[in-house]
């Protein structure tokens, strides 16, 4: 795979509303591990250009859900519909080839390499057999600028010297560089302080504004409401609610996360369970 100069410029045009077709749709996804029913007929949509928050308490099935989407664990039942067509990912490679990048909490960055080296790891452009450093530096710079990552002094500094928020930014830029259409972020703010959390949340919104679909896994309600256009809530392996963020408030989300239902409704046409079918 080669990353050309155009990679940073040719982007999906921003999609402003959710009336368009979803980028990814989960239909009746069920996953069992032996006797444990991890997911029961999960179904929700991920539209392009928006941030979808996947909320739920520990053990609700958030991790299993993203690992299913990322191709790590194929579902036992149900299907994934990617850009209108049912797909079967036989491994993370398949999902990546389709345009799904997952940023796990460990970020998968090599501390001893610099920012540019990390962003291009595995698909460095070559010039007469040797690494084309100038090309890499230019596109890395452009990508970071487009994401408005400006706190980094030099893109030639090793990742070990970066703060948590900056590392997260590098991981996101890496996903953009790989032309990801869907970026899944697992607890992106879990290890961050207040100001860095705000930086990362702003980055997530900017990523979505470029037309990328973002699925953020989080159990931090402040983050969820700060960043999400849509919210999907899991409870003990079931999808108990999904809808626009404006249809929820923190108390109703807490209710859904802890008991699986809520008596409160904020907007009309509230987010009820059972949309999975």
């Amino acid at each position, binding site marked *: 795979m080669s990353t050309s100069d155009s990679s940073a410029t040719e982007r999906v045009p921003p999609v402003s509303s959710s009336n368009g077709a979803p980028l990814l749709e989960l239909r009746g996804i069920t996953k069992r591990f032996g006797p444990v029913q991890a997911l029961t007929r999960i179904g929700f949509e991920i539209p392009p250009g928006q941030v979808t928050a996947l909320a739920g308490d520990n053990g609700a099935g958030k991790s299993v859900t993203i690992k299913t989407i990322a191709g790590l664990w194929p579902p036992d039942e149900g299907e994934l519909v990617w850009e209108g067509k049912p797909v079967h990912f036989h491994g993370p490679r398949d999902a990546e080839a389709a345009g799904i990048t997952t940023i796990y909490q460990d970020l998968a960055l*090599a501390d001893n390499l610099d920012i540019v080296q990390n962003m291009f790891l595995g698909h460095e452009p070559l010039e007469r057999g040797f690494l084309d450093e100038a090309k890499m530096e230019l596109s890395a710079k452009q990508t970071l600028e487009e994401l408005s990552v400006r*706190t980094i002094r030099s893109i030639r500094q090793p990742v070990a010297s970066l703060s948590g928020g900056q590392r997260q930014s590098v991981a996101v830029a890496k996903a953009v560089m790989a032309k990801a259409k869907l970026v899944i972020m697992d607890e992106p703010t879990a290890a961050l302080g207040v100001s860095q959390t705000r930086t990362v949340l702003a980055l997530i919104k900017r990523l979505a504004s470029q037309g990328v679909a973002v699925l953020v896994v989080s159990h931090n309600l402040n983050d969820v409401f700060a960043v999400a256009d849509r919210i999907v809530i899991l409870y003990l392996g079931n999808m108990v609610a999904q809808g626009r963020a404006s249809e929820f408030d923190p108390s109703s989300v807490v209710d859904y996360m802890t008991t699986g239902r809520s008596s409160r409704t904020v907007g009309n046409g509230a987010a009820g369970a059972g949309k999975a079918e």
Partner: protein
Amino acid sequence: MPDDEFSSPGVPSELQEPPLSTELAEDETAAPESDAELTAAAPEVLADSLGDYLNAQWRRIKSGESGALPVVAGLIVIIIFFQIERSKFLSALNLVNLFQQSAIYILLGAAEIFALILSEIDLSVGYVLGVGGFAIAELIAGPVNLPWWLGIICGIAITGAIGYLQGSIITRLHIPSFVVTLAGLLFFQGVVIELATIDKSAVGGVISVSPTSPVFKLVNDNISVAASWIILVVVVAIYAAFSIRRAAHRRARGLTAPPLSITLLQIGAAAVGGIVLVYVCSINRGLLTSLKGVPYVVPFVLLVLLGYSIFLGRTRLGRYMYAIGGNPEAARRAGINVQHVRRLAFVFSAATAGLAGLCYVSQLGSISTGVDGGTLTLYGVAAAVIGGASLFGGRGKPLHALLGGLVIAVVYNGLALMGISAAGQLIATAIVLLAAAAIDSLVRRRGSTGV
């Protein structure tokens, strides 16, 4: 961005307000988050002028990114010490001697660096050197009588195959490299003895190389003085043209490049180093007949190290070796065939040990079952670590092997001049190794607490 969807009650107001889009990022632009990130980048990247460059370099040293500085300083201190003790230490004869002796240590250090970068270790290099040396010596002598160059190629190929075998055992059976190469150290000592036993021409376990063979001449013969100077001028000119063009190329594309003054300074330093080297070698060091010129082994070793530097710094495979050493999981997720790269690292390590074997045979003019592979292995590890490679992976350059190998050769040579016994030499080398590791650890700890 549909900010109006953020109207949920109960959310802290600071998070509801629109500034989430751009201003947030900007309010941090003024001040970088810590001094650490300023110091971590290479000074060339940050500097616009010579003053800036020196400043950045100084900040880097203060923060623990001292690079090659401690080992260079240490080397100078040791050299001054020996010069005070024995005035002939810095004589042309002894310095050339020193360069010849250091070749083996430098190459063994370079071999070890390939393993260390991936946070592995190769304990077999000492006797892989032995196997390589025996193979070359036997192949170019009777009854095989291969041409010298084919003998060298075959010898290096054999050691490379040994590396592939060890690497395959490590990666396929998931046995730590420490164990596999320790077994290799024992096994190949046995192979060396067996080779000497089978070969009927090996009298008393010794195989000699004809003094007329280029294999012998590598260490023991010299490039003529005139040719040495011409080669030096050509090399410096190529280096100058290359680095000036590269800086101009980067500037033309809008990238940061070191200011011209720094580029010129680096070229000047390289030229001065080369001139000193060639000048020292050009002084007549013969006692009865005239003996002068740069030994072939000096450009040979430098060429190997340059090749490795280009390989590690400018090719995908080299980049992947560092990535695996830094974070194997990240490398795996980036689609790198981690086990394949790991195997190749052991091929490089063993083949480099084979090159060291070539220098060994050349220097002694023979090789015997008495080759002390155990000590040589440990000198290789010591050279890499003294030079600045990390035992924890991800950090190490061929330059480190050069510096570390020189330190070991200087200690060995200087103590021999002072008439200190082998016991004293071992003890002194041990102290130097510990001192180097201690300085490295202290400097780095200071750096890491600052982050």
